[in-house]
């Protein structure tokens, strides 16, 4: 995909206010990503608009692809119909995410902000599926030590000093940095590359956090994430 821009996102909702509100919410963590709201009908009623969705896809497409997130069923039907009418060349780089609108939208926005490619942004959105069940698993280090011997495990324990703890923007920064390393790194046992999982840990100022990797090559990633946390994520 020869596009120079970042992957764009389109939020399709029956309500224009939900779509616009989601842009606002995701914007906190993705200040420069292309986020386009396509909510409501052309005349401002509840519903979805083929023309709005088609227009939003065109607006969001900078050549690197577009991920579309939808709320209720007919929003998906409208989005699929809009895809049918695209030129083959454009359609090839547009994906409809099978993900909850809000959670998936925020996760995808962070991924797009970080300059991830289309498949990664789609994957970030779809990682939000079953986010609720992930929350109950959060903090359980099950599976994170499997396969890694104690001798290859790198771990750092840091105390969060910034006001917001690991929430919203700091969580996004941590996930963004973690995503630059190929190795798996965990925060209190939770995948450091999953924004929703990290945010759902609910770690506040003063919390003790274990950053670890079972990967023999993971020390650098652990150190980098620990340094970011110790720096307070740039917050006072």
């Amino acid at each position: 995909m020869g596009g120079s821009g970042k992957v764009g996102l389109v939020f399709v909702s029956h309500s224009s206010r939900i779509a616009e509100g989601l842009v606002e919410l995701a914007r906190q963590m993705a200040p420069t990503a292309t986020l386009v709201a396509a909510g409501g009908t052309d005349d401002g009623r509840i519903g979805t608009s083929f023309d709005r969705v088609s227009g939003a896809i065109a607006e969001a497409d900078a050549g690197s692809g577009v991920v579309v997130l939808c709320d209720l069923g007919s929003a998906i039907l409208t989005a699929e119909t809009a895809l049918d009418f695209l030129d083959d060349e454009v359609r090839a780089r547009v994906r409809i995410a099978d993900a909850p609108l809000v959670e998936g939208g925020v996760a995808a926005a962070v991924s797009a902000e970080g300059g991830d490619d289309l498949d990664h942004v789609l994957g970030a959105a779809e990682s939000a599926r079953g986010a609720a069940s992930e929350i109950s698993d959060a903090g359980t280090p099950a599976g994170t030590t499997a396969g890694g011997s104690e001798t290859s495990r790198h771990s750092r324990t840091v105390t969060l000093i910034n006001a917001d703890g690991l929430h919203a923007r700091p969580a996004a920064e941590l996930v963004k940095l973690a995503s630059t390393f190929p190795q798996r790194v965990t925060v209190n046992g939770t995948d450091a590359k999953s924004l929703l999982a990290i945010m759902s840990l609910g770690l506040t100022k003063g919390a003790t956090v274990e950053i670890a990797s079972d990967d023999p090559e993971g020390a650098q990633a652990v150190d980098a994430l620990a340094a970011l946390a110790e720096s307070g994520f740039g917050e006072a």
Partner: protein
Amino acid sequence: MALDITWAVDWVRRSAAVISEHRVELLTLDREIGDGDHGENMDRGFQAVLPKLDDLPAGSTPGDVLKLVATTLISTVGGAAGPLYGTAYLKGAVAAGPATSLDGAAIAALLAAARDGIVTRGKAEPGDKTMIDAWTPAVDAAEAAANDGGSAADVLAAAADAARSGAEATEPLVARKGRASYLGERSAGHRDPGAQSTALLLQAAADAANAAAGA
């Protein structure tokens, strides 16, 4: 006799009229088990098609008319009915191709393509309490009538009758697709508004064919 552009235009006009006439009925059905906008949305969509019929260029085919309906419904109907019916008319237009007149077999093929388009788009199956429960018996009846050598009007009459029975038969069903599925068991006892509008539209097609045959 085969059906031409006059029938296609008449079908659309009759569709717009019958949907307007049944607007409140469709709204009420949809309010019982859905979001209550089906009558209004369909009425807005077909009313938007009417003025465009006058702009069809000379030499237009039945397929051109169906394509016009498709793009207008997709753009003006806000609910699920827009993409679903829009896809149906679009696939019907493709099946009709550039033909200037359609015989019984061509009409049956058109209806089958429309039904297939809705299935592809909505992923509903018979028994899910959706418009598919009107379309499926309608297509079966249309194909049977065409195989028996029926005229285009015979085929549409058979389709309309079967669609009406199919819509009535949605009443006891529990919805498994669409907004009504959120209601679960409570969706039983109400006719599906999409199946009902399908029955109305196919009756309009049959009436237009009768009018053409009588002309």
